[in-house]
């Protein structure tokens, strides 16, 4: 267990999440991709705290931030989906993009 290894795992999670966020049509699935990316960020922050600067609390604060961001992203995401669904019966990113036109 080294810093590099942990960061590699974090990077892998981030990229899997990115792939999901880029490919998925459904807004809900896209949010799952974002969650996964944030999971990678959390892991990287924890690794950095542990291996680089454990005396400072900044790494921990970053994790708190990321966890909050996940919760906010979820809440806003579902609110937007509900609003879209109510008005246009749309749950796909493609269709939402068409709405702009």
């Amino acid at each position, binding site marked *: *267990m080294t810093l*590099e*290894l*942990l960061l*590699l795992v974090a*990077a*892998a*999670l*981030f*990229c*899997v*999440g*990115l*792939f*999901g966020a*880029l*490919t*998925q*049509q*459904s*807004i*809900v*699935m896209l*949010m*799952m991709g974002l*969650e*996964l990316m944030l*999971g990678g960020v*959390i*892991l990287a922050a*924890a690794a950095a*705290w*542990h*291996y*680089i*600067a*454990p*005396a*400072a*609390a900044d790494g*921990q*604060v970053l*994790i*708190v*931030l990321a*966890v*909050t961001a*996940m919760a*906010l992203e*979820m*809440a806003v995401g*579902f*609110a*937007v*989906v*509900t609003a879209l*669904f*109510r008005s246009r019966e749309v*749950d796909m990113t*493609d269709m939402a993009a068409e709405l702009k036109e």
Partner: protein
Amino acid sequence: MDAAVFWILAVLAVVSGVWVFRFDSMARATFSLLTSLLCVGGLVILLGLDYLGIVIVLMMTIEMAIMAVFMVMYMMNPAGLMPMTMMHNKKGAAVVCGLVFALLAAGILLAPWPARRGKAPADPTMELGMSLMGPQMLTMMTLGLALFATIVATVVLATRRGRYDRLGDDLRARRADDPVRGGVGQ
């Protein structure tokens, strides 16, 4: 011992992360994501941040359980009984992600990481609390404000009925006109 736990959690996190986008069934995808995030929580605990790791486990479990309901609500085919693909521009995304990963990996492996400075405090939880209530107070307040704004914004976005719908135009109705009656009786 730690190394074994690390490898199990790390592999499980990435594999279940991949499976999120391979399952047809929404329930399976959601709970595969939950597995992945729980493993992240486990790794965080392993790194000595007990409190944050447990909080991640707690929050993610609740979050994913609620997410599952929304999944079932809004997806066309939540149980994945009709196999269908929900992807677009798969190839481009794969290339982009591969590139990003290669870049990150190169950066991780090549960067001259600084040596460890200082020692972990005896009680990191206390440290976090002191920091959030002290030097990082601004962060904490911003977070609080953001959470509050989110609550208001999501309710506004998601609901259709305002208080005028519930209590009448002059807000004088004795009992709110709701589709379901609440327990407190107003």
